[in-house]
């Protein structure tokens, strides 16, 4: 019996949003008389943090504290159209729509502030703390609450905005595959170290060093959540998961979590991450989506590390201990 150490690498990019475009998302932003804003979406928060990212983007654009904004994702009667939360499109598409809507609402808020302060709206800035003041003269200020209140009760203005983001749909040339695909890409590179038991084919002591380029981490903790959890899923895809364990046969299919193995809390990899941010020119504050690309690199990096460890080509997923062991046996047979 021997334990063999191996190192594997990979590099990847990932397209953000439905790749041919044609996938609009909309946002509506409006304020109550106290200057507290609601962002209405029909986009879905399925754990990735849609509500939180939209909230921070809206607050940034409106120029108000994040506590003054709440995002609702619940309802097709109140939330305007959105294609949905998939294809890593949420942050990018919805984020841009929220910016557009928030800008429109902000302009109205600033107009009311300008009336109250008797200055030109173009000269006003927000401090992000709930105040609007004349550029270079913080003393000449009005709170966002008072501005919104005045807009609604004095000037009869709705402090609200509409936003949509659409990348028009591209066609595809049937002969060449020419198409206008997505507008921005996230990037990743990964180095995986692991150990392989040549008697059982088991992989253990997985250590991951990674770099992910995300455009801009709109909320660094949310990005971290995606990267840590995504790499776990990637490891699961690499070594464990399939609905058809003997593909293409349909025999012995799993019907429960017990028969559908995934790494348990005792099977976690050590994972150290570097995050890079090269803002996407068309991303909201430069942000790209991180939700999908984070899982992908683990698959080949693990396979490449297994080759480095025991010299067998693992080209079929998932790379179960059984597949590794069979390949080791085959290699021994050929070497004999």
């Amino acid at each position, binding site marked *: 019996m021997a334990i063999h150490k191996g190192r594997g690498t990979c590099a990847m990019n990932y397209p953000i949003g439905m790749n041919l475009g044609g996938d609009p998302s909309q946002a509506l932003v409006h304020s109550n008389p106290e200057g507290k804003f609601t962002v209405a979406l029909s986009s879905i928060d*399925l754990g990735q943090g849609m509500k939180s990212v939209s909230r921070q983007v809206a607050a940034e654009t409106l120029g108000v504290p994040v506590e003054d904004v709440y995002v609702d994702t619940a309802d097709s009667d109140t939330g305007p159209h959105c294609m949905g939360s998939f294809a890593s499109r949420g942050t990018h598409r919805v984020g841009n729509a929220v910016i557009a809507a928030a800008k429109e609402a902000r302009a109205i808020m600033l107009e009311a502030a300008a009336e109250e302060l008797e200055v030109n709206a173009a000269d006003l800035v927000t401090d992000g703390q709930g105040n609007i003041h004349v550029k270079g003269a913080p003393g000449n200020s009005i709170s966002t609450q008072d501005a919104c209140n005045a807009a609604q009760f004095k000037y009869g203005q709705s402090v609200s905005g509409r936003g949509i983001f659409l990348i028009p749909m591209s066609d*595809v040339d049937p002969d060449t595959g020419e198409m206008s695909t997505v507008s921005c890409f996230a990037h990743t590179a990964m180095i995986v170290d692991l150990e392989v038991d040549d008697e059982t084919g088991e992989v253990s002591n997985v250590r991951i060093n990674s770099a992910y380029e995300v455009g801009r981490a709109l909320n*660094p903790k949310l990005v971290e959540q995606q990267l840590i959890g995504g790499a776990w899923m990637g490891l699961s895809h690499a070594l464990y998961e399939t609905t058809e364990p003997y*593909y293409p046969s349909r025999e012995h299919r799993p019907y429960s979590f017990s028969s559908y193995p995934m790494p348990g809390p005792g099977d976690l990899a050590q994972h150290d991450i570097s995050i890079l941010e090269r803002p996407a020119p068309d991303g909201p504050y430069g942000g790209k989506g991180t939700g999908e690309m984070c899982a992908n690199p683990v698959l080949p990096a693990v396979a490449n590390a297994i080759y480095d460890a025991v010299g067998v080509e693992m080209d079929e997923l998932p790379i179960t201990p059984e597949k590794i062991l069979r390949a080791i046996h085959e290699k021994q047979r050929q070497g004999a």
Partner: protein
Amino acid sequence: MSVEFRKDLFADERDDDLNEVGKPTRRQDILGHVTGRSPFFDDHRFDGMLHIRCVRSPYHHARIRNIDTSRAETMPGVVRIMRGADVPVNLNTLLSLLDFGKDDEPVLAVDKVAYKGEPVLAIIAESEAQAHDAVNAVRVDYEELPHVLDVEEAIKPGAPSVNLTYPNNKFEFYGGTDKQKLRFGDVETGFARADYIVEGRYQMAPIEQAPIEPNGAIALPETNDRWACYTSTQGLFFTLGTAAKLLDVSSSRLHFIGGTVGGGFGGKVDGLCEPLAILGAMLTGRPVRYVLDRAEEMQVSAPRSAEVWYIKDGLASDGRIIARQFTGYFDSGAYTRLTSYGVVKCTGHLPGPYTIPNVQSDLYCVYTNRTPATAMRGFGVTGADFAIERHMDKGARAVGMGPLEFRLINAYRDGDMKAHRRLAGNCALIESIQAAAARANYPLTSEYMQMSSSQGGGGERAQIPATRLQDGSELPAGTRRIAAADHAPGLIPQVGVDVPVSGKPSTSATPAAPAPAQAQTQFAASPAMRGYGASSLGQSAPPPAPPPPAATPAAEASPPPAAKPQGSPGPRYSRYSKIGNRRR
């Protein structure tokens, strides 16, 4: 576990002192999550709520000869048994909302079943246990048919027809072709010039998305002659539109409530539960709940598609990849769902993040007698990238280079032409490799550490080469035939007004954006505006636009001007309105 931000990289393209963006603000939904009070779809309860369980096919492929529900109908608690004939429009394809592909899948099977687990009947009962009992009491008389499970077997002549809409077991892409092609340069010339040829076969597994919350919906009659639907969908309007089509009801009469979902990963896009729950509410006038159990989640809800890949590389002795050829088979299962779109997305992604002068790909979306596949995290890319990055290691070994060094010299850079004939920009592959190497103490020499995504690209690497087409003809260098906007970063219209969304507009190295109106009009007026739906509806496609004269890459980055007057509505919008405008 540790996380570090490399703020030193791309610092000149970024403004880091924003107020709220970039802050580790607590999640807005977190208090609800930790107290168990977040309103997931199943956290809504209604008096008199009924439950659905489905009768499902025990065969891979069979004709339905007879369905006997007489015993089930009289069982305690059974309120209604729904058959295919009860579904107003019992044939759909998910992407009909984008006019992509032909309707090919019933909600409830009528004449035949094409995979184990395909729903045949939906039984509505007072309790789930009673619905289960009634399911067990239904007798369906099947005539088993020959089946096929292997993608490469399925497309051979004489294979059983899985899907009657596509009898050859291959999806029809635009132009009626049975595969999605990618042609850039001439791989055969490249292979002939190569010092090394590396070939490989790879296989991606079908994988269950496995969110802990299962797919489900609760539908009920609302006042004003509408129906409400509490749902776990990942696309609220996507599923609403699907339900409206299947139920032949105006979308204005459906009210979807969701948005808080217990994980999705692509597994909650197909809208399996909503149409049946709403139909149940329509037929019974009562709240109806339909939730997949875990066994159904594992085997009846759609997984990530399996894929089989063949890759052939031609390598120069200095490590450059000079030709790369792909053949790929995506296992769509019995129906289309989203796999066809995954194939197109994948084609746009090939040959990976590398600049290769000759690229060819043929990808097939294949029908087999297996659970239909759909989206999952990394959709259309995960399997291809596994194959590519396994293959890159073999290439590095062939040329005797380190694996990261091999990737670095082939990495794409700003200004490079991609195989789908659009320019790359905003690249960061090189820097990502350098950062990961630094993290892992992977020794890269200064030659490799000094590489940069923003240097060394473009120029010769920006050329569109003369391209050999499948029929043997050659397309001249520089040819582009799709007149949609070039989506290379920086060319997309920015939304709204003046506030810079990237945080630092003036110093950005990328080109300025054209005005929004311009890009929209170019899109809408393109003479090449041919949707997938056009071919499926039997319309002949307009002839391709004449290739523009060969131009410098810089000029190419701006698409040719619009041919139609501004403001004319594009056909894409009318397709959406087809759903929205349906009246009852």
